[in-house]
Structures are given as C-alpha cells and as structure tokens.
C-alpha cells in the first residue's frame, strides 16, 4: 500500500497511530496526581515533538544517508521562520502560504549554501556549513535588521498590510494564525474521570505534516536515489571511478534536508508567530545533530524518537527544581535527603544542559547507533542468539 514494503508500512502505520493518539498516549497520569508533571500531552510540547521530528527527519536524509555532517542546519530553521512570519505580515494569517514560502526560501538558501559547501567533504564541509550558519546568525542581528528585526525578533503587528486578510480583528486585536478559519491555538479538552486530554488544532496540523514528511522520507530511503546517497556514504571514490558524478546527488539531498528544516521553521512560526535569530545559533544546529544521533542516524524511526526524547527531557528536566527533588526523597533521613538533593541539583532545572551533554557523550561512546541500535541489541539479547550476535553486529551497518 502507498508504494511501501510490508515492514515500512507497519512502521508508518505505527508512527501514524502514535501521532494521532498522542494526546492520550502522552497523558498517562491523572491531572491531580503527583506524577502529572511527567505528562507531555499538552499542545505546546506535542507540537515541538513533531516539529523537531520533521527537522531531524530532514537532517537524517543528509547525514544518515550521505554521511555529510552539517553543523549549520539551524540556519534553515531560522530562515524558514522568518519567511513564514513575513507571509503572515504581508499576505494573510493562513498557514498554507506561510509554510510553502518557508520551504521555498529555505530551499533556495540551501541551493546556494550547498553549492558552495559541497565542494569539500569531511570536516571541511562541517566547518563550511558552520561558517555559513554563523554568518547568517550574525547578519540577522546586524545588517539585516530591517528584515529580521534584530534582537527583538520578528513579530506580527496591528499595522501590517495582510493583503488577503485583515490587519486587525473586529475587536482591534492581532489576528491569529489559522488554517482556513481553524485557529492554530484553539484546542478542545476532553475530560474522562481525572484525566484531561487536550486536542489542539495546531498539533494535528503539525502531526499530519510530519506524517507526510515521514512518508516522503521513507520513499527517499527506499528509492534508487536513496541507494545512490548510501553509495556516496560508503565510498565516494568508487562512485567516481564508475563514471558517476556524486555532487548533484549530494546537492539534492542537501536541498531536500534544508527544505525539511525550513518547513519545521515555518511550522514553529505557525504555532507561535515570532521569529528570532537565536534559532539559527550553532548550539541549535548541535541540538539537531544530537537528536539524530541519539535516535540513530541512518534509520527511519531514529530521528523522530531522538527528537521526542530530547524535547521531552528538556521540558521535564528543566521543570524539576529542588522542592520537587526534596519531595521525592523525603522518605530518607534528613541529612541523607539533603545530600541526595545536592547531588541531583546540578543535573536538573537550570542544569539540564549538563545532563544533555553527558547523555550526548554516553550515547556517542557506548551506543553510536543510537536508541534504535540499543533496542535491537536488547531484542537480540532477549532472543538469546549469542553466536549470531557477533556475526550480525559485524555485518550490518546502522544504515537500515
């Protein structure tokens, strides 16, 4: 069905079901229980799951398939956001033109950057993309202020033209982003017993776009074009000897992945019509890399898992403060309690980045294939085939 193999179709359907029922799945704890803070089923966070999922899926098309490590992917995210907000300012508050424009603009941007950067490979490519991204970031703060509004960030205001829409609503407020009248920020709450499930329009729009992107990514992975990209990763020289020019393929992969990032940026702007240059900073690029690696570079589901994992823990860890930790370990004697809190303190709340950095290192050191490889190892261990274990891990590449 849909031109997918049986395995891929199962995977796609699982992702689709998970995405559509996310408000239930991510909300396992009743609202009044102490565990409610671990719920992730509220619109803002779920939107970030799928949007950064799109970003990581796109990054994976470049890094996972061709092996080119771009350290400047956040630039496309930022460009996409700016393009979308400009569309809201000039045309209308409908999200469709905004998303289209953000993809087009970031695609063009990717053509330019890719054309230059892809002349080099390896670490040089990483540095070149990093240089371009930092350049865009610096320019957004300085010369391009008329377009980007500098440090304040680009926002929609009451005196924007909005040719196809209205500058201000009837009651004088700023109009909100919508899809043919469906407001992105509106949501329905369904109360079942102590649970409160929130269904947000914005989330479902983003989730459906994510599913489409995921489907396209599967098709790319299984296409002859995808095979070509893998050939580039495994041995570019041999490709040249066979008389094939790799650069058009890498450029195409780069542009596709840039458009994915632009789409993610556009969606971010749709959910919250605001664009700032900090989205283009190189730490943001590093975060994309981390999501992909964490989940498993070169696998289909990995980047989505990685993005969800990081965004979830970012959210949860940074919410935990000392009081919460105290409450957890209150069963311990006083001195021990304070000691445990003192130990945990640097890793939670504002110290979330420390945990992130440690996680990053541990994953790269012990689990280069990411969560997907970890899952495979566990399932293999469970099936107890130790003899086959070694042979398999030696022969199969993570590029699944």
């Amino acid at each position, binding site marked *: 069905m849909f031109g997918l193999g049986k395995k891929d179709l199962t995977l796609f359907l699982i992702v689709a079901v998970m995405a559509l029922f996310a408000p239930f799945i991510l909300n396992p704890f009743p609202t009044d229980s102490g565990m409610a803070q671990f719920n992730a089923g509220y619109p803002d966070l779920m939107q970030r799951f799928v949007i950064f999922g799109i970003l990581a899926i796109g990054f994976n098309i470049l890094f996972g398939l061709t*092996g080119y*490590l771009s350290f400047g992917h956040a630039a496309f995210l930022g460009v996409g956001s700016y393009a979308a907000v400009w569309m809201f300012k000039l045309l209308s508050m409908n999200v469709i033109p905004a998303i289209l424009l953000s993809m087009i603009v970031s695609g063009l941007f990717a053509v330019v950057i890719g054309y*230059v950067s892809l*002349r*080099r*490979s*390896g*670490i*040089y490519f*990483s*540095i*070149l993309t*990093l*240089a*371009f991204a*930092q*350049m865009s970031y*610096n*320019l957004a*703060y*300085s*010369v*391009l202020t008329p377009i980007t509004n500098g440090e304040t960030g680009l926002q929609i205001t009451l005196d924007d033209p909005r040719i196809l829409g209205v500058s201000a609503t009837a009651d004088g407020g700023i109009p909100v982003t919508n899809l043919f009248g469906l407001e992105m920020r509106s949501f329905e709450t369904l109360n079942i017993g102590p649970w409160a499930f929130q269904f947000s329009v914005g989330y479902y729009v983003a989730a459906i776009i994510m599913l489409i992107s995921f489907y396209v990514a599967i098709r790319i992975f299984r296409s002859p074009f995808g095979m070509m990209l893998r050939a580039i990763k495994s041995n570019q*020289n041999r490709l040249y000897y066979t008389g094939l020019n790799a650069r058009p393929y890498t450029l195409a992969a780069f542009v596709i992945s840039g458009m994915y990032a632009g789409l993610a940026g556009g969606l971010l702007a749709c959910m919250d019509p605001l664009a700032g240059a900090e989205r283009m900073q*190189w*730490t943001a690029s*590093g975060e994309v*890399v*981390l999501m992909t*690696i964490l989940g498993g570079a070169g696998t289909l589901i990995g980047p989505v898992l990685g993005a969800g994992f990081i965004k979830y823990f970012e959210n949860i860890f940074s919410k935990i403060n000392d009081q919460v930790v105290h409450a957890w370990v209150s069963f311990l004697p006083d001195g021990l309690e304070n000691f445990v809190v003192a130990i945990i303190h*640097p890793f939670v709340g504002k*110290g979330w*980045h*420390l945990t*992130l*950095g*440690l*996680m*990053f*290192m541990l994953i*790269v*050191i012990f689990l*280069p294939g990411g969560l997907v490889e970890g899952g495979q190892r566990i399932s293999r261990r469970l099936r107890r085939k130790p003899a086959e274990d070694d042979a398999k891990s030696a022969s199969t590449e993570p590029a699944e």
Partner: protein
Amino acid sequence: MDAIILQILNGLDKGSAYALIALGLTLIFGTLGVVNFAHGALFMIGAFCAVTLNRLLTLSHQVVDETRTDFLGNPLKVDVPYVQDIFGEVTGAAIIDWSVPLAILFSIPIMIGIGVIMERGLIKHFYKRPHADQILVTFGLAIVLQEIIKQIFGANPIPTPAPDVFRGSFDFGTMLGFDPNVIIYPYWRLVYFGFAAIIIGAVFAFLQFTTFGMVVRAGMADRETVGLLGINIDRRFTIMFGLAAAVAGLAGVMYAPINSPNYHMGMDFLVLSFVVVVVGGMGSLPGAVLAGFLLGILESFASMNEIKSILPGIDQIIIYLVAIIILLTRPRGLMGRKGVMED
C-alpha cells in the same frame, strides 16, 4: 596611516588568542588525528584558573582595627587576606595584584593534567572511530565542561584585573612620530601579544630542537614506522595533548583581564578557531599561527567605521567570508599539506 597601525595593533591581541588556540588544535590534530571540539572549553578553563587563583589569594578573615572607626563609631573591621598574614602586608598585596601572571604557574600543571586525563580517558578510544564521532563526543564534552564551570562560577562574567603596572594605556603614536593621543594601546594587550609570541616560539623551538620534538614530528609524519622503531609514540602523543591543553589554558589565563571570563567564552572562540585552523590548513602549525593573526587583524580592520560605512555588517562576517573564499580557492588552506584529511 595612523588608523591602519591602530587597527593592526587592535587585531594583534585577538589574533594572538586565535593563533594560540589554533596552534593547540593543530598540534592535537597533527599528532593524534583527532578533531577536538572541546578545545575552546580548555581555553575557558584556563581563564577560570586565573579567576580561581585570584579568589584563593583574596581569601580573607576579619580583623578589628582599633585605630580606625566606622561611621557608627565602632572599631572598624577590616578584611585581611591570609596571603598578607603569611608574606607581610606589602608582599601580600603585591602577590594579589599579580594574581593573573601567577596563575600561569598555577594553571600549567592543572591544564596538563586535564589534557592527559582527557586523552587517556576519552580521546584514546576514538582514534579508530570516524571524524564525525570524534566531533560529536568532544562537542558533548565541551557542553559538560562549560556547564560545570557555569555551576561553579555562575553565568555572569567575572572581572579579573591585570596587575596595576599594566593597567592603563600608553601612547604608541608618539614613539613612531605621530601626534600624541592618536594611537593609544593598552599595556596589557601588548603583554598578551608578547606572551603569545613567546609561547608560539617556545612550542616551535621545542618541536624543532629537542629530541622529544623530533620524535613527535617523525610520529606526525609516519606514526607506524616510528612505532616499529621501538619508540612508545602513544605516550609522547599523550604528552603532546597535555601540552596543547596547556597552550590553550595559558591563552585563556592571560586573556582574563582583556575580557572578563564567562562560561561561554570557550564556545565563542572555538568556532572562530576552527575557521582559523581550516584557513591555515589542517595539520600545519605555521599555517595556524599565520591564519590566526591574519584573521584577527582582518577582523579589526573590518570594524573600522570607514569600511563599515561602505559594507555594513562586514565586521560580523569577515572571518567566515574569508574562510569560505579560501576554502574554495585553496582547498587545503593557506599552508595545508597534501594528504591530510583528503578523504
């Protein structure tokens, strides 16, 4: 003319910092073949060594001074640093005043220690892994180090003064026959430049004129053959890693008075230093130094008002622009060798 000289001088101190960090990066890359994204963090730790020593030296206890009174008429309580108890009032005050230069001595063992631990504990396991993995793991380490420093010292920049003698500026223009007050240059920046020149010279001399340096250079050229000759090249490379860490640390110590250390200064410098290394040519030590000064000076030229009025914003992007142009026209960088990072 005077404006040009002023800009060259202004570029020197930043250029010195770039050159020192890039030198360390290249040493690590040339010897171990590892791309170290945590090098900026080492620079930052160096700067915080200066902060730490300053804080240690100013640790004090309160003494009641009977001869003076505060505004309420009570005897005045004065903070007396322990250093002044031990060395006497004058010497103690001088030691505190000179805390940044003293931090050089204080930081060398610390930095070498950190470098050796890093190499033995982490980097060693990544020689055979792809460059992407090396970049990622050292990037993670950089985040961890940065966050640890942030937890200890807080997020705000910590002013760390230079010794009193070097405070203020001197009139460089009068020495060259220009009008007074045209070319004014802070003393400490001149000290920084001189210090950087000495360190760079020392590293080159060490590699060029000592037996140890000869072995290391041989190892950089052909690691396997040197190993076959019965020389324990791994241990020497570990020491080189420690040395590179010390160079970055020293650059950071001396930079503390120029720019108050904060936890993200390492990352800020790292990106630029990588650009410097690539412009100079991966694996080329003279290239790294040359490119460091070149880009530092170019950056300060680009921030001149005359140039900014023609090309607005050029000061923000000049380094990246130059890097892109050089990488496209001279793919191996200014002085890159053939065969390094070609695949």
